């Protein structure tokens, strides 16, 4: 089982990403859970969302405290929220930033695997909006290898209709452009 914790701000679409990813994984025959951090949320405030994906039925229903992967949708949260909290030994962190993985590793004082991609820049170029939630799904799929990008097609089309292709293009670019250091 792979457990992912997403960090974002209210309104950046972390919950949408978590839902799209879970729906796509389930459509691909896997078992998945996608859920928000439970409780009141407001625009701009730091929020978390969670994904569990496995090849067999998932029984656990408690929160995720020791994720395998942390995905940071908004790099301004680094320093504000302890994004590496509970990250498993050997766990990986993915950050939406124009910085290099080395710089982020230094910022976080973290020794594990770090991956970065300028998701916001890609989203702005591909979709004309600085919302990188779907873009960063591409980064997550590259780092984890959970499934291929094509698995996202149906759920993204269902969700975004005529805007789907732009989202898929952005996802593909993040998949291709992400820089990883182990």
């Amino acid at each position, binding site marked *: 089982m792979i457990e992912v914790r997403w960090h974002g701000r209210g309104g950046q679409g972390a919950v949408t990403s978590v839902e799209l990813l879970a729906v796509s994984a389930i459509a691909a025959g896997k078992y998945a859970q996608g859920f928000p951090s439970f409780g009141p949320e407001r625009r701009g405030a730091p929020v978390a969302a969670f994904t569990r994906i496995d090849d067999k039925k998932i029984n656990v229903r408690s929160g995720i405290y020791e994720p395998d992967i942390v995905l940071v949708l908004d790099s301004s949260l680094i320093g504000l929220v302890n994004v590496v909290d509970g990250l498993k030994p050997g766990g990986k962190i993915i950050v939406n930033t124009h910085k290099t993985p080395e710089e982020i590793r230094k910022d976080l004082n973290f020794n594990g695997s770090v991956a970065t991609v300028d998701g916001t820049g890609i989203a702005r170029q591909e979709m004309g909006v600085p919302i990188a939630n779907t873009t960063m799904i591409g980064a997550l799929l590259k780092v984890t290898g959970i499934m291929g990008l094509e698995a996202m097609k149906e*759920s993204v089309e269902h969700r975004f209709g005529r805007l789907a292709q732009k989202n898929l293009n952005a996802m593909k670019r993040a998949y291709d452009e992400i820089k990883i250091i182990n």
Partner: protein
Amino acid sequence: MGKRVGLEVTVAVAEAVALCRIDMAGVYPITPQSHIAEHLSTLVADGKLDAEFMTVESEHSAMSAVIGASGAGARSYTATSSQGLMLMHELLPIASAMRLPITMAIANRAVSGPLNILNDHSDIMPQRDAGWIVVFAENGQEAIDLSIQAFKIAEHKDVMLPVSVNIDGFQLTHMVEPVEMPTQEDVDQFLPPFVPHATLHPARPVTMGAFAMSDYFTEIMKAKDEAVKNSKKVILAVWDEWAKMFDRSYKPVETYKADDADFLILTMGSMGETAQLAIDELRVKGVKAGLVKLRLWRPFPFAEIKAAIKNAKKLIVTDRAVSFGGPGGPVFSEIKSALYAETRRPAIYNYIYGLGGRDVTVHDFVGMFEKIIADTGNVAADTYEFWGVRE
């Protein structure tokens, strides 16, 4: 066969209710139930569900509206949580006394105060004696299945009682997870059209909800009690039919590795699956631990509970509500009373946990077992404790 899809559980429940071809829904939004109301309203607005979606100004009105609609012969549905359910409270015994087969989803949430929007069972527990059939779902699939079964049970001519399907708020309602959505054909085959026992109609006038004095009140209460008890036969038959048709079985009390267990834990609702993982962990360590899941809260399944726990040495009853100044959690006191006359019964411990959304992990469940096993003299038996409370 239905299609396996990933859906948020509230959306899946609304889709399932739509498959039941409801005539009317009267719902007032409240977290964490709101997505049920929103999705049902969308289905009606998009013309995918031919039903009246009544926007009401409160949950009191929602329950009043479904009582009226059900009395007029409409298949009627509502959903609520927490304070909404408390506001409906005075009408719940009226719906059951009038024998109206309303079904309601309760997205379980802590009751104020202090204000809290997260999950526990303090909303449903005060409704215990309202004369409704009460079932609990453990996961999204069960939430769907129970929602569909609820109509068939409620509307059976030998039942004619309202049913509430309890779905833990957030832990279940806000989870996107895999579910198998039955097809319209399957649901149509399973669920016959609603035939009311009486209807409000100007051409054939009847009086519903009339006045009764002391000369009849006792007889009416007795008849209602018998009706609720008697509904169990139909509940079992409907679950049997469901298992044959959909290959998913439902029982009033379900067990996991309980047959040879020395130590048992009893859960209700979404905690069951996490507890199951604790049982696996304990079994690996050689502890004969087992799990009992109580699905049917009313009518209370006395025989099934006794059979499931009689051979255990110790039993942990978990509660997600408090009976302040009372004998322990509501589930605990019911189980204790069910076993009062038994000569052979386990030592019973009560842990009140998961209040107002407090997370409960596999580690917590393992800890509960370790604690009762360490209590060799059964000193803490028959008492209750707030699990994990900061001293």
